[in-house]
């Protein structure tokens, strides 16, 4: 069930992961594993009301507790901040940038704006004492009515940020285009739906954490952090403190997942950096606990989508208007994440003649929004559910309406109505492959039989195109710094990090493939600003395409130099040489050969043996920038479910993915990313829901309330591959986010299919048993 390219010696092979043995043996090195002499520990005092004025903060009792070294409030830390913004987003409007930031300060000062808002920071001998001290800080807050809910926030009855004129941070109205209005006025069918996606969160299994060691005599700061980007952390720490970037070193060894939550320095981490800078006597460590992670780490997905679609009688798409409301909470990481991009990619895999997008990002007194695995993915959630709603309205099969409108091979290259250019995508082919894997006819027969017994089976299909390897600003490129050592082995340093992406294996696969060496002779160094190049780190489904491109280019450059040296020594032309298993030989004359292990010492130690004029050494750098702002990958997902008609409980029967991420470096790793993303997507529909009450109190601050899927709830995920080369250097396409993007509508559409004959047409997440049964009751009474 695959359309695969021919695999290379390494690229295309399911190479077992190099990083696994140490992680399996419990010898990973995560930030909380950092233990330094004299290290002290941090706990926060946090607001227990969502909105209110701080009347007083009394830290005297806490400061007097034995084992407590410092207690800082906003008055201590905030005035010391030089600048607080994110490189990826750019400087704020006030500094000449483009971005409307929330008024970022490490600690609350004057008022509090969400439950969990950090008010004071304690430095103590250990975390136990730090928490004791936190309990002793007396904070009096005069509570005010909280702003909760996107549409409530948009009414501006009360302001989340008094520095801002409105709770609407950014807004982009749907353009008024007379021709489009005329089209909608005369279209045979126009349907409108409002979809709602519930608040969910990234939940890396390792919460956030940071160790800050500022030595005021050395004048430098060393940071160990659970971060997706050491470069971003270094830039942020330098901006916050006023230290030069060259005075800040950031190390991320192993990171226990991020999914977007660890992309940017948030207020908590900024407070620890500022506290460490002010304290200056000893390293301090903050390890976020799970309650903090569920209460104060940035969250995602709380969105409303208003979709209007015009179609012909036979289901041909005529146009769409979409408005995205996103709840960005109080202090989003960056700004409103998605509306602009979401509108641009809304056409997805279909030939829409016109799409007019708009959106508003709304502040509320809840925790801020994060980038979470496909931050713009609301477009797919809305579009793919809408396709089914429209199909059922017209009495057309959801498969057929997609077949009628999907972009096919003969349409390529295709420019969408929103000016996105697809050169090599396969939405039609993946859709057909996924449907074949299911055997639609057999499923429909089984569904009909089951229905006779009152059992509710359904299938859902969802198709999408993913803007992977987003290449704007700092995201545009990545660098590889490559060195062959004296023994002929290779070290490659990159800006990436290890938080589950398998780059310690896949980058060496690329290097070994293109350099011609054994994979065990390649080591990737990452996650350390002192040894790695500048770059945006890991995220945005970028590493295979952009880091992979840099690694490939560096490998070829290094190989070129090796061949020149070998050619000189073997008295041959470089074109007549080949490389196999770290040995350079003359083609057809294998006896005339030089291993890397002989060439490397010559390059470093024997200039007289090098070609005249050649610089000594075997060190190269390469920076790769992909040809376009997006590298498009695509997939189709099919889900089948059975719903317990009496309890509303949904069981997933089968889950099928067909995907095209270009040339796969490691199909095992690709499948791992798909499965992980899919289960996060399933979670967002069936299990996960971060709940705030009307006063802004978070009700889901433990794992007993915020429900992650576990092994018995997930199906065996069946995966088919189609490999078509992207226009990038390696032909790769990014795919890390896709599973999480398209699984939610696939599951929702399956539930819709199971229940539609009862008059149930779901539009809102979550779809837990309570919600499903309520919809069934409602339909039965209608």
């Amino acid at each position: 069930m695959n359309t695969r390219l021919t695999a290379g010696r390494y690229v295309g092979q399911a190479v077992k992961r190099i990083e696994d043995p140490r992680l399996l043996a419990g010898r990973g090195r995560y930030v909380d594993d950092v233990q330094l002499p004299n290290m002290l520990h941090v706990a926060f005092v946090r607001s227990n009301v969502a909105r209110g004025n701080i009347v007083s903060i009394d830290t005297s009792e806490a400061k007097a507790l034995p084992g407590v070294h410092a207690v800082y409030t906003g008055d201590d830390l905030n005035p010391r901040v030089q600048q607080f913004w994110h490189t990826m987003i750019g400087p704020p409007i006030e500094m000449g940038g483009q971005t409307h930031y929330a008024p970022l300060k490490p600690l609350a000062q004057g008022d509090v704006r969400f439950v969990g808002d950090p008010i004071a920071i304690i430095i103590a001998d250990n975390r136990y004492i730090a928490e004791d001290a936190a309990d002793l800080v007396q904070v009096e807050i005069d509570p005010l009515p909280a702003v909760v809910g996107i549409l409530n926030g948009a009414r501006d009855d009360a302001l989340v940020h008094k520095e801002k004129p409105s709770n609407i941070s950014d807004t982009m109205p749907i353009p008024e285009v007379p021709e489009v209005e005329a089209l909608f006025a005369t279209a045979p069918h126009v349907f409108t739906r409002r979809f709602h996606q519930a608040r969910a969160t990234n939940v890396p299994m390792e919460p956030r954490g940071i160790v800050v060691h500022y030595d005021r005599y050395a004048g430098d700061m060393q940071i160990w952090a659970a971060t997706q980007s050491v470069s971003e952390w270094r830039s942020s720490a330098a901006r916050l403190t006023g230290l030069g970037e060259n005075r800040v070193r950031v190390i991320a060894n192993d990171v226990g997942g991020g999914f977007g939550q660890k992309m940017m320095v948030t207020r908590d981490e900024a407070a620890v950096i500022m506290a460490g800078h002010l304290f200056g006597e000893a390293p301090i460590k903050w390890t976020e606990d799970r309650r903090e992670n569920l209460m104060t780490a940035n969250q995602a997905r709380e969105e409303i989508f208003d979709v209007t679609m015009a179609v012909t009688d036979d289901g041909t798409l005529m146009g769409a208007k979409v408005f995205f409301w996103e709840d960005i909470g109080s202090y989003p990481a960056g700004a409103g994440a998605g509306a602009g991009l979401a509108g641009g990619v809304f056409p997805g895999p279909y030939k829409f003649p016109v799409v007019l997008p708009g959106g508003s990002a709304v502040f509320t007194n809840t925790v801020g929004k994060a980038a979470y695995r496909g931050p713009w993915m609301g477009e797919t959630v809305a579009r793919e559910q809408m396709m089914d709603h429209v199909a059922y309205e017209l009495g057309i099969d959801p498969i057929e309406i997609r077949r009628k409108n999907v972009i096919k091979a003969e349409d390529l290259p295709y420019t969408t109505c929103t000016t996105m250019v697809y050169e090599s995508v396969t939405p039609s082919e993946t859709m057909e492959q996924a449907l074949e894997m299911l055997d639609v006819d057999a499923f429909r027969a089984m569904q009909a039989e089951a229905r006779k017994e009152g059992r509710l089976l359904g299938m859902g299909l969802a198709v999408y195109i993913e803007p992977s390897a987003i290449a704007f600003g700092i995201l545009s490129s990545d660098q590889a710094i490559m060195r062959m050592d004296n023994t002929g082995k290779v070290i490659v340093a990159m800006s990436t990090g290890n938080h589950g992406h398998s780059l310690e294996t896949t980058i060496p696969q690329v290097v070994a493939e293109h350099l011609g060496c054994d994979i065990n002779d390649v080591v990737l160094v990452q996650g350390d600003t002192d040894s790695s190049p500048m770059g945006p780190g890991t995220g945005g489904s970028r590493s295979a395409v952009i880091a992979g491109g840099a690694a490939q280019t560096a490998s070829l450059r290094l190989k070129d130099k090796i061949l020149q040296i070998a050619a000189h020594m073997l008295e041959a032309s470089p074109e007549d040489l080949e490389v196999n298993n770290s040995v350079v030989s003359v083609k057809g004359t294998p006896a005339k050969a030089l291993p890397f292990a002989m060439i490397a010492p010559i390059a470093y130690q024997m200039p007289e043996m090098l070609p005249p004029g050649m610089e000594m050494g075997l060190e190269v750098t390469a920076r790769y920038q992909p040809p376009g702002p997006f590298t498009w990958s695509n997939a189709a997902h099919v889900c089948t479910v059975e719903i317990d008609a009496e309890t509303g409980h949904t069981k997933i029967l089968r889950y099928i993915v067909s995907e095209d991420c270009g040339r796969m470096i490691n199909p095992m790793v690709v499948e791992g990313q798909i499965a992980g993303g899919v289960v996060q997507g399933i979670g967002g529909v069936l299990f996960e829901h971060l709940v705030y009450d009307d006063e802004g109190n978070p009700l889901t601050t433990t794992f007993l309330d915020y429900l992650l899927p576990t092994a018995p709830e997930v199906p065996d995920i069946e995966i088919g591959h189609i490999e078509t080369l992207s226009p990038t250097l390696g032909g790769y396409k990014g795919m890390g986010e896709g599973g999480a993007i398209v699984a939610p509508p696939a599951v929702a559409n399956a539930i819709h299919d199971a229940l539609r004959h009862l008059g149930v047409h779901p539009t809102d997440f979550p779809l837990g048993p309570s919600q499903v049964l309520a919809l069934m009751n409602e339909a039965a009474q209608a």
Partner: protein
Amino acid sequence: MKPSSFNYHAPASVNDVTALLAEHGDDAKVLAGGQSLVPMLSLRLAAFEHLIDLNKVEGLAGITRSNGTLRVGAVVRQAVAEHSADVATSVPMLAKALPHIGHFQIRNRGTVGGSIAHADPASELPAVALALDATIEAAGPGGTRQIAAADFFVSTWQTALDEGEILTAVEFPVWGPGSGFAVEELTRRHGDFALVGAAAGVQLSGGKVTKAALGLFGLGPTPLRAAEAEAALLAGADAAEVGRVAASGLNPLDDIHASGAYRKQVAAVIVRRAVQAAMQEAGA
């Protein structure tokens, strides 16, 4: 999430426990498996100056059968009871309930007595104790006393144990031949607290139900005994009718996982399924 300070005590006898409780009053708390208590301490939802560990107290870890009852000591691990042949043959309802508790790692430490004394209205064992008319053995400064399960569960996390008393054992009645049992529950995920749960027991004689027990969990402030539904069962009602009767008197509350209306509606279904399964096992 670190607990507040406490003084730790590991007494060796029940008398030592009750003496410590008498000395420290409500500044002290007993610790059995700790699977519910320790998270509450770490979240600082509770704090005690003295923690009295029951795990090294002699005489609390045995399972013994005598005179038509099975006595389960307070610190018998749930996993031990789950794999006990005595439990499986003597109190099948208990054996069927145990695998629903959390996960195997939780049951390896959690105790039968601790679960019942914790009296969470959504957990399985209190409902089993109530359904089976178990007897709770309590020890206090004045010696031991027996408390009927019907009198034991006062409200959410509140029992009839006096301050200064601890649960030392639970005695479950052993049913005779012709019996069948089932524990049915609806959870969001495997191992979660039940949204709706039912423990059913029936005994048949000559094709008629001669004995019926029905305990509900997740449906009120305490585990509930569905007495009217038991009466209906004895009167020959079918399982669906028994479910309707059991659900009719319920008034469960909303929470983030399910509405009260949902729980009430589904209670009829879960009770029906439990009764059907119990009847089937009994040979109906």
